[in-house]
Every structure is written in structure tokens, then in C-alpha cells.
């Protein structure tokens, strides 16, 4: 029920006085209400639940978490992403 899916903002616009946008979920694009994230912009990642963007994904924190796993000696090179600077 509280399933919420990450997606990337592709377009931001006003519709009926409400801030809306198009969000790409790995190939599927849907219209999403952006009213609760007045700062979010095209290119940002967001978490979407029942048609509403409820949280901006903080890229720095995501990398930080992966870096922490990396530093624990846990993940080594599995991710193929820059987790350690």
C-alpha cells in the first residue's frame, strides 16, 4: 500500500493551478503531482506514491550509504558505480 517508486523528473508544468510533471520510471512515463515538492526540477529523482511525488531522492546520501557499505569492506566492486572518492 505504501509502495513508492523512484523515478526521474522529465518535465514540470502547471495544470489547473497545480504543479504537475512527467516522471520516468525506468522507461514508463506517468503524470505526477509535484505540488508537495516546490523545489524539485527536471533531472532530479523523486519517490512517487499514488500519483504524488512525496520526497526528493538525495543523491549525496545515496552515494554516502553506498560508500559506507564500501568502507565496511562489504561491497568491494560489485556496484560498478563511484562509491568511494
Amino acid at each position, binding site marked *: 500500500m505504501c509502495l513508492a517508486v523512484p523515478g526521474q523528473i522529465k518535465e514540470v508544468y502547471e495544470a489547473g493551478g497545480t504543479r504537475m510533471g512527467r516522471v520516468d520510471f525506468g522507461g514508463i512515463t506517468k503524470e505526477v503531482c509535484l505540488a508537495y515538492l516546490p523545489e524539485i526540477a527536471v533531472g532530479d529523482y523523486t519517490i512517487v506514491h499514488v500519483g*504524488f511525488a512525496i520526497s526528493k531522492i538525495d543523491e549525496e546520501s545515496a552515494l554516502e550509504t553506498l560508500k559506507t557499505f564500501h568502507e565496511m569492506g562489504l561491497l568491494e566492486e560489485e556496484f560498478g558505480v563511484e562509491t568511494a572518492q
Partner: protein
Amino acid sequence: MKYLEEFRDAKGVQALLAEVRRVVTRPWNLMEVCGGQTHSIIRNGIDQLLPTEIRLIHGPGCPVCVTPLNAIDKALAIASQPSVIFCSFGDMLRVPGSDKDLFRVKSEGGDVRIVYSPLDALKIARDNPTREVVFFAIGFETTAPANAMAVDLARKQGIENFSVLVSHVLVPPAMAAIMSSPVNQVQAFLAAGHVCSVMGFWEYPPLAERFHVPIVITGFEPLDVLAGILAAVRQLENGEARVENAYARVVNYEGNRPAQALLAEVFTTEERAWRGIGVIPQSGWRLSPAYEQFDAEKRFSVGEIHTCESLLCHSGEVLQGVIEPTECPAFGRECTPRTPLGATMVSSEGACAAYYNYGRMAPTRSSNDLVSLSL
């Protein structure tokens, strides 16, 4: 998809599991309070990969499951009225009321429609000005901002044929109720990540302190869940009881302030009966007086509702970790996802349905661990 695959890495799972094994020295009971996490844990077999010392209790984390029978019966009564188009999230349709479900109402000729978002229901109201459109507004704090926005837009846009049947539930009061129960076995919480993405976690430090219980904000992918478990076990082993954020890419302390502001305007707290658990003070939201004209309960007469729960169902004990789903005598026999008897079987995110759907048909604990059903 970025921000998904990285957190599903199999070797990462093994490495985090090894770290949990290294840290744990004693038995601990952890509760997740989110159906999405329950589903992820069972689907990925995380509970079976953990060291035997760690037991996961699947708490009342599915709002579909805990929506009280009284609210379901009201929905059935309203949806049966000929003037009404009744809109709902899909997973509410086969939740059993006292004598039927919304699918039955639909098969009997009721206009029951599944929507993805409350904004879809609002559009149906706009497109059908001669019909009454009712949306079944259930859910935790995660879903409430969407429902609040639909009601607020209806007021702003003067859509008078739209109303909502509200039965929202709030997580922190339920956590307090669980810790206060005489049969409580919970020693640490994995807090629900997406509830916290809306509400932040400023409500949790007083709970952690009052009950001396570690609370770890946790995500949904296997690495997220294991990171939450590891943080909770580390705290337990060290005798700590702090609030810790293991889902920082999505959750911050403050949460979504614009959402919280509209929630405070549209809703007001009240006591709420949780299916399978009972009444918890201040654990529900209903419409505030300023939005009462959109209250479906006030708009439609539903008559007297007399609810009737199954006597065979032990979902209350499952939700508190007193028994495992498979220890209920009705599990997999009278009670299946096709014929659910109670809270934990009615939605795929309920503990019993998750066990059933992933083939967990036998008890995993030895008989010595079983707690009497008479508790």
C-alpha cells in the same frame, strides 16, 4: 533503474548478513511496521537468512489490513447506492466486510471503480456532474497527502459531487500501543521509510526514550532492510535506544513540510479502531470541520452498522508477534488470500498473505517457542 539495482546487490546482502552475524550475541525481537517491508522480507527470504537469534515480528504495517470492519461496512453501504460511483485503491476491493466485499457490490450492479490516485477519482467527479463520486480515503501518513490534496482541490474547484470516506491510520501511536501491551515482545523497531518521507522522524525520539527502544528508519530494498536490521542489532547489543536513519536518501528529520501543512489543515486526529488490534487513542485522521462538507459519512445515510468478525481469525496475535501466521489453526485452510478471514490475510502486504503467497506453509519456530493461543 537508478536507486533500485544498487540496493538489491546479492553480494552486498551476503556481506551485510555476515556483519549482522558478527555483531549478534543474544536473541532479539525486531518489528517492522510496514507492509512493504514485510513483503520484501518474505519475498527475499531475509528472515530465513538472518542468524537464528534475530526474530522479525511483522507488525500492523498494512493500512488495507488494519482498516476497521466498521469502515469497510460503511463503504459497502455507500457503494451499493444507485447514485454513487465508488472509487477505491484496488487492494480494498476484496477486503471482507461483515457479509461481503466491494467486488460483490460491483457484481451486484454497483458502480465500483479502481483508481490509481485520488486525483483520478476527482476527475471522474468532474466528468460525471450528475453522479455522486465517493473516494475511499484509507492509508498511512504516506497516502494521506494525496487524499488531502484531492479534497482541497475539490473545495477550491467547487466540485460538489465529490466526497471521501476517510479511515486514515497513524503509525507512531500504534508503536506506542504495541510497546504498552502486556504481551509485547518487541525490542526494536524498523520504522516505515515512506511514512517517514512525509512525516520526517521528529515524532520518534520521545518514543525511543519513553520505551527505551531503538527505532531505525528503514527502506525497502534488501540492502536497505539489512542495513536497518544491522543498525537495530548494534544498538540492542550496546544497550542503546536511539532513533537512527538508515534510509537517508529518501528520509530527513523534518519530512515533507508542505505536505504536513496541508495534512494539518484537512485532517484532525481521533481515536481509531485497528482491525485485529483494537482501539488506539489519537491514531486516526478524519476530516477537519473546515472540510466536513466532503465527508461521505455525513452525506450518505448508512444506517446502523453491526460488524461481525470471524471467530477463527488470530490476526491480533500475529500482528503482535505472539504467534506466527502458520501457527493460526485457520491459516491455509479456512483462510487463504482468496477467502481471507481477517486483517493479515486481506492484502498481499499482510503477514499471513505474504507467508501464503511465498509458500511458507509450516511453522519455522520449534514447538518449545510456541506461545499459548489463549494469551
